[in-house]
């Protein structure tokens, strides 16, 4: 679908052009007809004058009372001519000199070629006088009228074109002005996507206000639902895991029981399953308005906390001070927490975490100087619940949880060997709006 701006501009321009063309054509035509009518009525008038000035008593030759004829007919090639013809008589104006007006088939003839190539309009009419038939042709040079009409039409066209241009410009600015709220809403939607704002605040015209309100309401609903479900999940987790912890301890207190290994194994399955489903349900994923408010503060506190728990490990955090991460805070903390803690468990003395902002994506690298893992185990480590080594405590779901969250953001996670620290390196790419 093309833009509203384009649609409006095109249709308005087309209607304007249509109107101006029609108007110009009509006025031009009308002016032509009007001036011709004027001319014809004058010629008819002159014709009647001529008839009145004609004195003809056959068989005497007809005489014209020159004083009653306009002087313009006396001046040679003045452009005003007449010719009176009867059976064997021919009277013509002096202006014709020795030319003559050729008979035409129609009573009103246009495009008659006159003396000196003049362009004439000729009126020819038959009369009966004293029982004799006579024909009076009267003609006028219309080239100057034609040229003025043409000039007028040209001016008209020019004016129309200019008016159309001005109106188009005006109309363009009117469209821009009317679409301004839409543009600012679009800008705000972009900001919303980036997580810079949580609601659309720009005042919208009444036509699209319901849409904006609906979007705002949906956003609020989403946020509220997420909070509520996270809260409920937290309660559920508490309600499920506390009894599980009790069961686990009871089972462990009877190491001589034959069923103990099986019980412990089943218990572990339940724990892993619960953990995984809870994390999946808790993940917000990519949604408009999601922004990690203070990533640096959270990451610093997280690494400080891990430094307390793993005093022998130094954790290097390489993050730009102005970094902005458009993602849910809890999701991101889950990713970083799991991966950095895991790195700390395996590292000998060093863990490094770096975040780089790239064009439209976020590149996260977490590496350690531990033993790393074999390349063939990379794939299985990222799959559900698989663990590279059972010797370290924890539920071993770290990687699959992280994988789950990252896929909710359409991101990618790959494992490799760290070139600097020689341990495991986790590479994550998160698309950013």
């Amino acid at each position, binding site marked *: 679908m093309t833009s509203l701006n384009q649609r409006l501009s095109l249709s308005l321009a087309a209607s304007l052009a249509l109107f101006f063309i029609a108007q110009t054509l009509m006025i031009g035509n009308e002016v032509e007809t009007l001036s011709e009518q004027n001319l014809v009525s004058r010629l008819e008038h002159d014709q009647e004058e001529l008839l009145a000035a004609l004195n003809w008593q056959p068989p005497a030759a007809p005489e014209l009372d020159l004083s009653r004829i306009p002087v313009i007919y006396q001046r040679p090639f003045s452009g005003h001519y007449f010719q009176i013809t009867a059976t064997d008589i021919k009277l013509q104006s002096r202006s014709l000199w020795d030319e003559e007006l050729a008979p035409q088939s129609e009573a009103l003839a246009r495009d008659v070629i006159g003396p000196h190539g003049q362009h004439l309009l000729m009126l020819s009419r038959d009369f009966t006088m004293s029982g004799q038939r006579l024909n009076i042709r009267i003609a006028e040079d219309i080239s100057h009228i034609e040229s003025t009409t043409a000039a007028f039409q040209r001016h008209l066209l020019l004016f129309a074109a200019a008016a159309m241009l001005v109106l188009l410009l005006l109309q363009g600015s009117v469209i821009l002005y009317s679409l301004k709220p839409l543009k600012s809403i679009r800008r705000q939607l972009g900001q919303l996507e980036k997580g810079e704002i949580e609601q659309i605040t720009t005042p919208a015209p009444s036509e699209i206000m319901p849409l904006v309100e609906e979007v705002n309401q949906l956003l609020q609903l989403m946020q509220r639902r997420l909070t509520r479900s996270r809260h409920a999940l937290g*309660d559920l*987790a508490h309600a499920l895991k506390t*009894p599980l912890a009790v069961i686990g301890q009871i089972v462990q207190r009877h190491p001589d029981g034959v069923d103990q290994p099986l019980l412990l194994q089943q218990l572990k399955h339940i724990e892993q399953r619960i953990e995984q489903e809870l994390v999946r349900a808790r993940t917000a994923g990519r949604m408009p308005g999601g922004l990690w408010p203070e990533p640096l503060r959270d990451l610093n*506190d997280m690494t400080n906390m891990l430094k307390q728990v793993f005093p022998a490990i130094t954790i290097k955090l390489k993050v730009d001070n102005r970094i902005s991460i458009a993602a849910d805070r809890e999701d991101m903390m*889950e990713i970083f927490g799991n991966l950095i803690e895991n790195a700390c468990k395996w590292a000998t003395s060093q863990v490094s975490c770096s975040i780089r902002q790239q064009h439209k994506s976020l590149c996260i690298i977490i590496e350690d100087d531990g033993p790393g893992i074999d390349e063939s185990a990379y794939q299985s480590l990222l799959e559900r619940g698989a663990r590279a080594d059972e010797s370290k405590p924890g539920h071993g779901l770290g990687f699959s949880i992280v994988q789950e969250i990252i896929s909710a953001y359409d991101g990618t996670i790959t494992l490799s060997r760290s070139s600097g620290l020689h341990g495991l390196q986790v590479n994550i790419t998160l698309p950013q709006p």
Partner: protein
Amino acid sequence: MRLLLIEDDVNLCQQLTGDLRQRGYAVDASMQGVDGAFMGESEPYDIIILDLGLPDLPGLQVLQQWRSKGIKTPVLILTARSAWHEKVEGFRAGADDYLSKPFHIEELCVRLQALIRRSSGLTNAAIEIGRLRLDEEEQTASWTDPESALAASIELTGIEFRLLRYLMLHPKRIFTATHLVEHVYDYNDEKESNVIEVYVSRLRKKLGKDVICTRRNQGYYLDPDALQSHT
């Protein structure tokens, strides 16, 4: 080691109390946030285990309350949610370590020991002063011999172990008998007035006379110099 456990689930609370007592902690337990918060303020605990999901008063609030009152006891938080943002918020409120439910009691004990050592300023993995080494798992003491790897372990009773651990974690510091009672027995234990004197003399019998010194009218202390050589 006096330990305060605040956990709202009756069963887990009982389980943990039993297990931790067995491992040499003097455990007081509370199933309510308000009571627990008060106990944490009024008794001289060495370490606190705090569940975040308490029904009456959120664990984080209890923790903040303690820290704002200047109580610096190391706190390990238990969380069922195992959400990282919660752990970081717990850390901000002043927690020293975290553990997600469900957990193994061994893991909890490892974390507790590490936390206690850290708060006493010790960096080694085991409690060892001079040639005297304390085995927290077995609750025994032993004299390490530089010439032979074999070390004869000395059996300790529950209270002897608690007392020796407390003194070894704070070498050279002088403690009154009352102070030692408070850190070795829990709130409900029957305490007799001369009990510390009795246990100190038992430890002296097992480890050697000069290991625990008496300073008249002030109390007892562990002399690290006496532990450098042992015959």
